[in-house]
């Protein structure tokens, strides 16, 4: 095996290890607040002896969907010997895992609502929000951005020919743009003013910046596989520690049902809708989340994914 192929296979194996850990974490998520809760739904006593047991099992079964997608494709890749495709598989699976989790949690909560404690789902009467502007630049470190831009430009100008060629550079730059888009979307997330929400936002933004730094590093120099592995393992451990801290704190904060002032359940048609007057990217309709195509971020996201597929074909 050549170096890039060996690296891809090693990363795929590592990806499995990280996923299994993620499965254990997500498997515990429904009862994170205790047995009185099923995710954010305050359930009646004895819920887990009856319907709860079934809902929990279904939720766990749905966690296996990404594996059902992954395993046949991985077998085909290994059988055909086109091992570099494993890199694309990892990227695709990241999207599938997150989308599957989002949909699955929403579905599980909706299924559990009939078993909720009476009046527990009543929306709160008042909402408090911060009037401090929240812009991408408020969550960006200027020095870090300047270093990143200068390094990327220098790498493209001076180190380009010594590297794997324009294809790798184009891919890394496109990924870079994707993380900037992700930051933009994370900053705009609907949130209340508790520190735990803000900490979660900063955690995800820091992850994006860390990935961007790694992409730039890859663009600048051909780093040894062992170094990459060490970086991956160390950053995974740090991310897991932070994630556990966040989960513990989230569990201490009582979830509240916000009033549906937009009447999302009426205006949001699943899976996509067009509501120019609604400020949200995703509207929570009766059948689940609906992407609001009137939101500029939705269009940019669709354009990005389309571009990613086209780039994949070109490369």
């Amino acid at each position: 095996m050549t170096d890039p192929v060996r690296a891809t296979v090693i990363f795929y194996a590592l990806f499995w290890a990280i996923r299994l850990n993620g499965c254990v974490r997500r498997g515990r998520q429904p009862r994170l607040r205790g047995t009185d809760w099923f995710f954010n739904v305050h359930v009646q006593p004895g819920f887990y002896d009856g319907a709860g047991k079934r809902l929990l099992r279904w939720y766990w079964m749905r966690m296996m969907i990404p594996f059902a997608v992954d395993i046949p494709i991985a077998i085909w890749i290994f059988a055909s010997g086109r091992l570099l495709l494993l890199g694309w598989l990892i990227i695709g699976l990241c999207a599938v895992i997150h989308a599957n989790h989002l949909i699955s949690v929403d579905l599980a909560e909706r299924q559990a609502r009939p078993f909720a404690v009476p009046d527990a789902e009543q929306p709160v009467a008042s909402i408090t929000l911060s009037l401090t502007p929240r812009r991408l630049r408020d969550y960006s470190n200027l020095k870090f951005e300047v270093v990143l831009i200068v390094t990327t430009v220098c790498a493209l100008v001076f180190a380009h020919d010594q590297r794997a060629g324009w294809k790798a550079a184009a891919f890394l730059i496109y990924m870079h743009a994707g993380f900037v888009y992700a930051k933009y979307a994370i900053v705009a997330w609907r949130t209340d003013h508790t520190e735990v929400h803000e900490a979660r936002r900063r955690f995800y933004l820091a992850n994006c910046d860390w990935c961007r730094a790694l992409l730039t590093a890859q663009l600048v120099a051909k780093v040894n596989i062992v170094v990459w592995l060490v970086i991956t393992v160390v950053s995974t451990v740090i991310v897991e520690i932070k994630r556990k801290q966040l989960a513990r704190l989230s569990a201490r904060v009582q979830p509240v049902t916000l009033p549906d002032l937009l009447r999302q359940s009426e205006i949001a048609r699943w899976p996509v809708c067009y509501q120019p007057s609604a400020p949200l990217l995703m509207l929570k309709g009766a059948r689940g989340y609906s992407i609001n195509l009137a939101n500029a971020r939705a269009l940019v996201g669709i354009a990005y994914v389309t571009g990613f597929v086209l780039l994949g074909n070109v490369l």
Partner: protein
Amino acid sequence: MYGVRIHHTLSTDPVLLTIDTTDPRPIYQQVADGIKELIARGKLAEGSPLPPVRQVAADLGVNLNTIAAAYRALQDDGLIVIKHGSGAVVASRTTTERSPDELLRQLRTALTELVLAGFSARKILTIVARELK
């Protein structure tokens, strides 16, 4: 890079706005009144930027037009200036629209209603002093 500090308390952000869904006033009025109060209390100083309409609407989960109407009302009162492309900023701590006579008339009406509701003069003075704080 910034650190990720994790707390679970409420934010210490002094510029908070609360909307009550049981309040008979429409949401846009509550937003406008809330911002007015923050300006009057000096928590939003002259020149302070206000969040974009989209951010406030998203955080409250309301229609964009609702917040746009609130901002327009504040602009009409001369309290904020809306600059296209750069957002809204607090313009002044004083409104320009209504005359002192009109404002005093409103105060007299409010005081009359308090007296008719059974509040004593001492109680009203306490309330006024507390509100002015």
